[in-house]
């Protein structure tokens, strides 16, 4: 999982180094571990890469009027192949990256969104065949084009969102124009983008992420009208779902957790220990929200269940008399072939079968039905492969 961004100024006078940095900062929720940028000045790239957070990246001394930037797990981006500096969101093998550097308009079922800047000063931007990975076009006044995995990076630099780039679409941008090529595509937007990955202020495939998550919570309340004293969302993604649950059920919503430090996405961290540290730093329970109460705890999804196990324990130690876990999406039962961090089936908690609530330590656990998730997103062109549903290949 990663966030990618590209800047293209219509005059050499601009230095887009800091713009790229702040753009990446606004995409950090999409994946962490490594960060890198490439800038074009004259016919030369200057690049900077770093393992760590965007904040660790130094931009002093870097200069260029066009750029690409990457934040995510892989430390190889931006990758310079031939005359191009390339960043991607998704999965790509070396041959497909080479063919991209050769000819970005070649028809193939790319499993990644990309931004590629070449030394001649052309920015090529493409969304994957299925539109699994989001990608947006924006403008900064008359001076720049901005492309980004999510609108957040466009807004972070003071730009204006123009539109979503379509599945299979490849945009070629140079000083003389912007050309849209719509290659063959089949729309299958990633349902996990709606459920947890995209930022709450994004709109994807005409659906507001915020409204979708509220609706997921509302539908949870319709499917599981539990008796409880409070409903609490696990930050960040669980909060709007808890709000939706509360509105429909009439059960008051409480804010149950305080976050320490910057936003750490535990789902993206490989190392077990770091995941726990991340989770603990992320959340500290507010005792008064839970003490002596029957609690409904709402989260977006459950992968290994480790983070949720601890969260449930903290809620119990804060004095909860019952803890019922509700998840705003169907169970994850198999790994993602398109680069989302959903591990193979045997690492998923759903492989434990009947005993999940015992492992998690909850009085009960319920998942939103597939049908309700479709209804909440309001879009039938979804990829639900990891939930046992339709992937990119199925009609």
């Amino acid at each position, binding site marked *: 999982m990663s966030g990618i961004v590209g800047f293209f100024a*219509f*005059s050499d*006078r*601009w*230095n887009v*180094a*800091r*713009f790229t940095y*702040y753009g990446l900062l606004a995409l950090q929720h999409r994946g962490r571990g490594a960060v890198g940028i490439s800038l074009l000045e004259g016919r030369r790239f200057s690049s900077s890469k770093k393992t760590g957070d965007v904040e660790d990246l130094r931009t002093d001394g870097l200069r260029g009027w066009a750029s690409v930037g990457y934040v995510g797990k892989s430390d190889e981006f931006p990758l310079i192949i031939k005359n191009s500096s390339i960043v991607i969101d998704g999965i790509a093998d070396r041959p497909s990256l080479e063919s991209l550097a050769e000819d970005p308009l070649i028809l193939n079922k790319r499993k990644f969104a990309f931004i590629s800047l070449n030394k001649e000063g052309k920015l090529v931007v493409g969304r994957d065949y299925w539109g699994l990975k989001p990608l947006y*076009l*924006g*403008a*900064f*006044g*008359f*001076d720049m*084009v901005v492309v980004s995995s999510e609108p957040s990076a466009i807004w*972070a*630099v*003071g*730009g*204006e969102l*123009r*539109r979503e780039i379509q599945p299979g679409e490849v945009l070629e941008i140079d*000083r*003389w*124009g*912007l050309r*849209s090529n719509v290659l063959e595509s089949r729309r299958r937007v990633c349902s996990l983008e709606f459920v947890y990955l995209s930022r709450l202020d994004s709109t994807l495939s005409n659906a507001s992420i915020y409204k979708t998550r509220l609706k997921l919570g509302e539908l949870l309340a319709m499917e599981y009208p539990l008796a409880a004293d409070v409903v609490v969302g696990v930050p960040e993604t669980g909060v709007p779902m808890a709000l939706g649950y509360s509105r429909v059920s009439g059960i008051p919503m409480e804010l149950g957790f305080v976050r320490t430090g910057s936003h750490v996405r535990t789902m993206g961290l490989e190392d077990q220990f770091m995941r726990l540290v991340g989770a603990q730093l992320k959340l500290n329970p507010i005792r008064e929200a839970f003490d002596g109460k029957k609690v409904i705890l709402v989260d977006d999804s459950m992968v290994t269940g480790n983070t949720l196990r601890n969260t449930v324990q903290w809620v119990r130690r804060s004095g909860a008399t019952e803890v019922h876990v509700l998840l705003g999406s169907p169970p994850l039962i198999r790994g993602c072939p398109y680069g989302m961090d959903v591990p193979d089936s045997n690492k998923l908690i759903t492989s434990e079968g009947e005993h999940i609530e015992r492992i998690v330590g909850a009085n009960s656990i319920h998942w939103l039905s597939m049908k309700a998730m479709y209804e909440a997103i309001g879009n039938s062109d979804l990829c639900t492969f990891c939930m046992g549903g339709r992937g990119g290949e199925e009609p």
Partner: protein
Amino acid sequence: MVGEGAREHAIAEALAGAEDRVYVLASYRNPGLANVAEHTGGQLILGSITSQSKVKEILRGTNPDIVVIGPEDPLFSGVSNTVKEEGIPVIGPSQRCAMIEGSKVWMRELMWKYKIPGRLRYRKFDSLSEAASFVRTIQGSIVVKPAEQVGGKGVKVITDLQAYLSDDKKTSVSSSLEEVSSVVKGKEKILVEEKVEGPEYTLHALSDGSSTIFLPLAQDYKHAFDYGVGPETGGMGSISGPNDGLPFIDSSELEASKEIVKSSLRSVELEAHERYVGFMGGQMMLTPIWGPTVIEFYSRMGDPETAAIVPRVHNFGDLLHLAAFGSLGKAKPEISQLPTVVKVLAPRGYPISRAMSTGHKIELDLRAIQEIGCRVYFGSISLEGGQLITQGSRTLEIVAEGDFVDASMRIERCISMVKSDYPLFHRSDVGLTIPEQERLATISRRIYKFKSSNGTLGSLSEFIPQGDNW
């Protein structure tokens, strides 16, 4: 007719519709204007459109009843004064009245002196270094412009709600001041204004020196490329209508805009001590700070707004005659209910490299385009030895009447009938952006109505850390 572009072509056709014989002074052989001249028994005469002696020579040779001046440059150089001295009624303000467009500083000073609503805070600079230091220290979003009208170029918009990028944005702009001011001739070089947001629209008035009438609203598309990205241009398309408005401007906003343009026009007359005869275009924006707000004034009609407006005003030619003879008081524009959409074709290279976009051959099937129900106005293109050769700016303006989406689609079909071995580009989204404009207008409307209700119209609402140093 003085002038040679698509705007003049549209106006000349309207004059032909009023059964005029049309003579044209143009610096190249615009095939559209040549055609109008030929069909009406007039003539296209090649020559400099800013040369007083050339103008006098043609006036004496053709003895016209009225003269219409299309573009701003002849106005700035006093062609209107010359025509008047020859005793011929002229549509186009005098050199002094045209200051409203020629000097952006004069325009802002006028608006503040006469307390006209919709005026923005500004600072003027003779010295580039003073301008640069102001740009670096001013808090908030700004627009940096050359102090004079230089063909709609050189405007820098700096959105600065992000303090962390402030230095980068302002360093870039202050380093480009030299370029912005290089074409400015007068003492005052740079104008810095507060930046405002909202949907833009153009309101044209036609004045005969005592009465004023208004043409239907239009909106032009400034960004070079599709979806509103890319460098600033003179305009890559426009829309007008339905009726006398636009879908995202309500009737009270239209009336307020008319008041602004009318009082500005009368203020120009007071300052210049001359009657204003001709067009005045208010390039307006519906902003949260004021509601209708003036971005700039034209002392002529906007291009490509003209191509959207003229076909919708059935008695346009007659109106010009009435204005020239001071009889607009009785006149009323006959405005078509249906909207129009205009798309502009330009050669690759425009607007950054004139060298790239000049000298390319194009071909088009005019009859087939007319069969689809579209009009073509020829812009920066010359008929040379039987061939159509691009002159470096916007080449063609294609107009369709009808609902926005339908008209926009029909123009796409026409554009496919324009052939060239050199790439031409256009914006496919002209006429398709109404919902977005309505959304922007709604936001502006909510805020300016609130400001109006609590008496803070025209003042800034944002907190400025180091004080308001305008």
